């Protein structure tokens, strides 16, 4: 299945791109994707083990099981206001 990944702020700097498409196995969780990204090396090796994420624009636990077409966003600590 295909997942759309979004990176913001500091995490975008680590990824080097604001978004990417990822092909992964059915049953993968957000935590699975975090592990894959960290193992792949490059800037994303410095992604925290448990970053905040949103699935389809809503904060979600890393244990969330992803579905084909989901939008998974990696969100550094927020600093609006």
């Amino acid at each position: 299945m295909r997942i759309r990944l979004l990176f913001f702020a500091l995490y975008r700097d680590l990824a080097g791109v604001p978004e990417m498409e990822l092909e992964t196995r059915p049953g993968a969780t957000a935590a699975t994707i975090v592990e894959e990204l960290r193992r792949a090396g490059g800037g994303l090796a410095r992604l925290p083990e448990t970053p905040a994420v949103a699935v389809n624009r809503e904060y979600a636990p890393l244990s969330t099981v992803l579905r084909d077409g989901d939008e998974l966003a990696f969100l550094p600590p927020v600093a609006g206001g």
Partner: protein
Amino acid sequence: MRAWVTRDPIDAGALLGAVGAPADGAALLFVGTVRDHNDGRPVVGVRYEAYVEMAERVLGQIAAEAAARLGTDRLVVVHRIGELAVGEASVAIAVSSPHRAEAFDACRFVIEEIKRRVPIWKEEHYAGDEAPRWLAGAIPPIPEARP
């Protein structure tokens, strides 16, 4: 009630005109502005970045929660993103209600929750050669896993 994100300058005074009603005795307008310093270091400007679609959704959730505290739906909130100069407004919140206690409570609630959970990030810019820096932020509250 309205909650949105914009790239344009905020007209804070106009926001006050968007709230108010004959039943109301109190209106409150909060404006957050870019300071010329932070942590003792001079700041020349900032850049806000947002996950816009989600930020507007979370702002809307905060506005709805605040309206429940306020007892009215007379509440508007806007957050600006992009490049901002010192003195410019980054966020503005206007509320009105029959009594002042609820107005102060709801207005304060909105700004605190924005800082706690709206997916917006701030990069500070400094004078000279110093590199811009993402501000250390707040870890947003993540819901528990559904069983």
